[in-house]
């Protein structure tokens, strides 16, 4: 369990134009350092995309788990 305070939760389990990364990037932009953004996704390819994006932008993935048929990731904003 991570104790990071959640700024926002995003349900990205269906097609959306900004894509999971677009929604995540937008929310992380508005989060304060140390806050987290939770995102629910459906597939492994998107999970890999989130990891690649987090690495590039130097934010931290603090939760990565399966919840039913969804994947739940929490990304913590690093300054």
């Amino acid at each position, binding site marked *: 369990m991570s104790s990071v305070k959640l700024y926002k939760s995003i349900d990205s389990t269906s097609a*959306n134009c*900004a*894509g999971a990364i*677009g*929604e995540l*990037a937008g929310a992380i932009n*508005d989060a304060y350092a140390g806050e987290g953004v939770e995102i629910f996704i459906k597939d492994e390819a998107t999970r890999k*995309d989130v990891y690649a994006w987090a690495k590039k932008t130097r934010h931290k993935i603090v939760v990565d788990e399966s919840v039913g048929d969804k994947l739940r990731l929490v990304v913590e904003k690093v300054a």
Partner: protein
Amino acid sequence: MLVAGGGIGGTIVANRIAQKLSDEMARGEVKVTVLDRSQKHYYQPGFMLVSMGEMHPKDTFAEERELLDRRVGLITGDKGTITKLNPADKAVVTADGSTHNYDYLVLATGSHIQVDEIPGFKEGAQTFFSLDGAQKMWDSVRGFQGGNIVVDVAMLPHKCPVAPLEITLMLDDYFKRKGIRDKVNLHYCYPVPGVFGIPNVNKMMTGVFDQRGINVHSQFTLAGVDPSGKKITSKEGESLNYDLLIAVPPHKGAQVLGDSGIGDRRNWVPTDKYSLQMKGHDDVYVMGDTTDIPISKAGSTADYESYVVANNVSVDAAGGGSKRDYTGSVFCYIATGLDQATYIKFDYTHPPNPPTPSQIHWWGKLAYNRLYWSIHARTII
């Protein structure tokens, strides 16, 4: 019933409610009123066509009163400008100091461009996301003789997510027809990897961009615009010179939502993705660009949502019938030039599968725009 905002969503939903509750309205049991700061109704999809000289600016707006069903009330100006929303007291305050009480509220105050959020943006970038900006952009495009055109998306989400793809491909076609495409370098900067967020649409459009010789820079998150040096820089550390910068500014929900303590830090209102009710307030429905649902902020979304909101609020108010869920339907044409287009149609369970671009879809796009005033806004269908 109050409808906050008489744009695409607010107008269509008010008209549909009037059709559903015509008997109750005739008996004086239900009253529907739209509040908007402006008497004019702007059809923003037209702005993009204005920016490419394909539509006259005066065809992008009409009198709101003429679009609304005559049984629906309309209050505009200071009396219609909402300065505070108070869902706990079921009340809305307007700029003239009046308090309007409601039994049911529909929030449709839209999304709004933030040209001051990124340093140098206002001074250095042109944008077709306002009517004024679109007119200026057309002057710049017409006069452009050659050099670097940079199309940049500052931040996601923004309304009409396909618009940056469209404007880039329309510019390509425009300069080709003018015979100077070889003198124009087209660049497309996007804040996430690829050119679009939906994988198969991204794949298709990446192919089209490649064929058309458009340079893609992604992930490119706009950090600042240097108007004197004519240069943009990204948070990823890339910089790019431009002769003409065409950019999509960051967006926010209406300021009044933030001022009323509603919504997230970008004023998007927490909304149930199926019932379209504001989370924690069953008597408030939210539609169009105002919601925080990760779906296209598009006029077509608002139109699809209007069926659900009009139905459910009518059931709430008058009883009878059964409630419906919004299934996530979205339909957007994507212009791929000045005489061809494709489209995406999808919902929560069916991803889009865009057809090969063709002239038929371009005519479909133009026809939708032309018929907006006579058919769609008036909810003839």
